[in-house]
């Protein structure tokens, strides 16, 4: 829930239709509003551009271009949107690319939960504040 009480809007990006279906069910159950879905990199960028969600759940391995690239493009369009990378792989399998990516956090697909999402977003907010303070 946002401060205004309306549900957090989410765009879900994953190339597996089955995973999207289940994740949408879960997210809806947890109180999120899944406003759009995409199955590839370019689709993700377009969906975010038109739907302006609060949060993007972005699979890393996507047809077209990958989640890292998509995150960079989305961030260019919308500096305020929350971006969380999701993947079936371990975070370490991407080396330092996750850290360098224009995303707020990383959640393994099977770990998807309100708690894990809240945790990475909270960490990102802390980091952003930390960066902003000295300025």
């Amino acid at each position, binding site marked *: 829930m946002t401060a205004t009480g309306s549900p957090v809007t989410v765009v879900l990006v994953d190339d597996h239709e089955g*995973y999207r279906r289940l*994740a949408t069910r*879960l997210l809806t159950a947890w109180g999120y509003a899944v406003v759009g879905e995409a199955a590839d990199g370019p689709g993700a960028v377009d969906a975010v551009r038109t739907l302006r969600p609060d949060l993007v759940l972005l699979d890393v391995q996507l047809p077209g271009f990958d989640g890292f690239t998509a995150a960079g493009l989305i961030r260019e369009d919308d500096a305020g949107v929350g971006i969380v990378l999701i993947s*079936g792989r371990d975070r*370490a*399998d*991407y080396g330092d*690319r996750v850290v360098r990516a224009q995303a707020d956090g990383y959640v393994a*697909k099977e770990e998807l939960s309100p708690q894990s999402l809240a945790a990475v977003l909270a960490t990102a907010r802390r980091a952003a504040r930390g960066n902003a303070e000295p300025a």
Partner: protein
Amino acid sequence: MLRSRPRSRLRAAFTAPSTPLLLAGQTLATVLGIVGVRFGGYGLTWADTVSHTVLPLAAAWAFTCCAIVAAERRRPTEAVWPMLLAAGLCMLLLLGGIKNQLVFQIAFLSDWLVMGAIAHVMTDFARGAAYPRLRRALVVAGYVTTGPCVLVWFVTAGGLSARPRDLLAEIQVDTVSVDTADIVFSMLPTIVYVVGLGLFCVRWATASRILRRGWTTVLLGNIGMTGVYVYTGLMIMVPALRSTYGTGIAASRVGLAVWPLFLLAGLVRARAGRSVAADLAAELGHAPPPPGRLQGALARALGDPSLRLVYYRPAHRDYVDPDGRPTPLPESGPDRTVTVLAGVGAIVHDPALDESPDLVRAVAATARLLMENERLHAEVRAQLAQVRASRARIVEAGVTARRKIERDLHDGAQQRLVTLALMLRIARGQVPEGDASLAAAIDEAAIELRHAIGELRELARGIHPAVLTEAGLSSALVSLAERSTAPAEVVEVPEGRYPPGVEEAVYFVVSESLANAAKHAGDAARVTITVVAGLHGGRQTMTVEIADDGNGGADASRGSGLRGLADRVEALDGTLTVHSPVGHGTRVLAELPCAS
């Protein structure tokens, strides 16, 4: 063994007269000639006889020697028969000292015809393959202008009825009176000589170094001889020179005797050149050049920098170059000749050497053993290259296969387990309030599933580190360093992608070395990782160094981990060295060839 040349063998048979018979005949003719001139009717003393006959006899003997030397070499190109003809005509010159009508006429005509024979020798000596028609035309023109033409001139000028005169005494004639016919007929052979000399100059200038060696002497002789004949021609033509007639005749007689000596010197010198080459080849036999250098040694011996060797591989029925690279057997053409040594290989050389097949044959015979040796080396090198190539292919295929298995695990089983985890989560949300046992069962299942996913990931990572595929070598090494138990830092690593086999080997070298450092180097040790890609000894190489400042004392031969690493690196044609003096840290250094 060598290219078969049936035509030249046939010709060689014709150009090989029996030397003892020749010498016996010539000796007899010499004695008869001297006696004939002494009692020929011109009333000469023995002293006069000697002074009259010495030059023609010297010429005749010199030509015979040339013919014998040339015939001995069984070279069809060096005009054995015209040499013998010239020798015979020189002997006939002696008839000029016998006071008899017919004999005088024969001697007179021989005196001219010998110029034709000389022109023939000059044109045919070391003739090569250039200007065959011009050459034939010159030979014919030489004989026509000194034979039939002179005969016609002689008859029309009333020579048949002329009184015989001592032709051998013409040296003493002061001056002659000539008419137009004399000028025309005496100039014709001179023109043949000048053209012949020009042709020889061209041949000399375009000959290979080793052939030119013998020809230079002959060229000098030809220049002198042509000069003499040009002078005798001018002497008839220019009235002012007619008073030097005797001198001109003397010069031409001296030239006749001396020119064959130049020819002989040229033949001997060419042989000397040949024996130098043979010596060189023999020297190679004593101290075999290092493998692969035979080609250069032969090129120097034969004075042909373009010379190439190819070796035959009986097992494959194909040819390889000295480095073992398969190469087709070239065909002889205008720019190269292929001399095949059956069962060993072939020498590909400059066609200029065709003119001395005996030289190539001599060198080839000497080089044969060495070539056999080199052939084995080349074959081993070729096999080694094949083994290396197949090993590299096997390694690469292994990496590709493992990458695929890893990817399949991730896309298949892993994906399904992840989906299952979400399903359990949905089921958990739908458990009615109060059904604690069902909730607990689902929670347990979820925990078990999480373990299964974790184990599957570890398994996949062991098969192939996905980080290499997903993030590249640089990121992979940085993340290895970050996760390392011993504090590690990546000092340098090239960005960009390299062959999967190389990336994987580097990854495992670093990860194994980090694990070793964590285990053995001690708590205080710090590890640095340096990877540099660059040209090393002429080939693209990736150098990996993992150094720590710990306890040292690691033994590559004892630890199976290091042995395994060495195998992995060597399979890619690389090297792995471990420096680990006790108390001074450990330094693992791997060098891998890589074409990025």
